[in-house]
């Protein structure tokens, strides 16, 4: 499979926090969702991919090359924090981007800004949080990047705006050569559009695979502690004990359900998987 991004042995630390020995391939032509708790290392990973952070060790290849020179415009980015100048307006941002990116499509930018309801003469310092995200999206989709990376892009958006945004992502993905890496705490968005899910926990990748496979295979077993633990350590990813019951995240819910018909085994959503891994005890 052709990969947009290939990562081998990536390490980056900031004091006691960091990402360690990450190996990851982001296949071209797919949407990859990146999940993890706050401080897991998602943004650090994204910044190592984009080149904003310099890895301590390891290798990051973008479109088959470690060199960044010549790649301007091939990467579109949307950050949770808007890095455009507050004193500029949409018109000036468009003019700036047209001089930076060879493939800048000014008509597309204006159309997107119009669809997003953002006046071009309004200064960014007067934008709401949602508008700051939208102008980043408009810019990212207007220079025909091969890879779009979004770090919490839908945070702060209302449901209608998120729905519109996800439609834009799907429209962008109509081109089979386009790739999206999207980190989000709103896992329902990723369940809707992602093809692959990467779960980072405490600086390491704990889960990486096709979304449908993950949602199809993982499940939550609930019941008394002894009954739940009876499914066996080899099947259990983590266990969460509370005052009244025990829950276990299992890798093969259909297999467990067949082997232990007396147990209740529910499908696990991405939210469930995250909560169980982060708050549960590993077995």
């Amino acid at each position, binding site marked *: 499979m052709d990969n947009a991004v290939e990562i081998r042995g990536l390490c980056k630390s900031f004091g006691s926090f960091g990402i360690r020995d990450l190996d990851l391939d982001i296949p071209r032509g797919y949407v990859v969702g990146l999940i993890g708790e706050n401080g897991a290392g998602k943004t650090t990973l994204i910044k190592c991919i984009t080149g904003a952070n310099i890895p301590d060790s390891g290798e990051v290849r973008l479109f088959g090359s470690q060199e960044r020179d010549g790649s301007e*415009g091939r990467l579109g980015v949307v950050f949770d924090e*808007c890095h*455009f100048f507050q004193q500029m307006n949409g018109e000036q941002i468009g003019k700036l981007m047209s001089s930076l990116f060879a493939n800048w499509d000014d008509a597309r930018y204006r159309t997107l800004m119009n669809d997003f309801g953002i006046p071009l003469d309004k200064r960014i310092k007067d934008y709401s949080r949602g508008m700051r995200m939208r102008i980043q999206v408009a810019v990212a989709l207007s220079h025909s990047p091969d890879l779009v990376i979004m770090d919490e892009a839908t945070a702060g958006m209302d449901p209608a705006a998120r729905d519109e945004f996800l439609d834009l992502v799907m429209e962008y993905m109509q081109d089979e050569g386009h790739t999206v890496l999207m980190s989000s705490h709103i896992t329902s968005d990723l369940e809707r559009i992602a093809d692959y899910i990467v779960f980072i926990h405490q600086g390491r990748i704990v889960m990486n695979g096709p979304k449908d496979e993950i949602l199809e295979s993982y499940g939550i077993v609930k019941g008394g502690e002894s009954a739940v633990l009876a499914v066996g350590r080899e099947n259990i990813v983590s266990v969460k004990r509370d005052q009244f019951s025990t829950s276990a995240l299992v890798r093969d819910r259909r297999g467990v359900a067949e082997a232990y018909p007396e147990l209740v085994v529910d499908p696990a959503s991405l939210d469930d998987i995250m909560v169980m891994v982060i708050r549960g005890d590993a077995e």
Partner: protein
Amino acid sequence: MNGLVWKDTTLLRNGLIYVAVFGVVFSLLFSESNVMGIVCPMLFSSLVASSFAWDDQCKWDVYAVSTGIPRNRIVLSKYLSSIVFITIGFAIGLAVSVAMPYVTGADTDPASAAIVSVTGWVLSAIVVSISILVNYWTGSSVKAQYVSIVVLMASIAFLVSATIIASDLVGGNMLLVTGILLVIAALMFAGTYRLSCARFAKRDL
């Protein structure tokens, strides 16, 4: 590249106007027209530090590097922006130097004013090369900004004093002094550019 320079000049448009007005008022107050050939480019050279402040305020470098703009190009754009700023300062300083005597009724010497203005441009070029390197070396913290100001003030004082002394040593031949300073400025640009690139290449944004 053009976009990065355009960005700096657009953001500092108001600053350019304020500094220009200050320069003109300064010259009217002191009626020392030739001095404006030195003072104006020096004033405009301070704007490059403001361009760094604008970038740091919104962490523009994170976006620029993330979209594939080479770090060396970002550094080079600062040098080009600074040349734009000091050239504007040179033009205003020269215009004031030539026009002021007509206002005050003093004797005019456009050739002398031009030489002094060129010297001012070259001195400012040396100052901005130091300023850019200091900005990349010390970063954007408050402490670093104070260090940057101290280094700049010391550089300006040293350069102006050295120029005056050198002029006396060569019997007032400002063309020779300016020529030597031009070579120094070119070497400073090249040297500080390489050091700035090396420093910026290792910075986590």
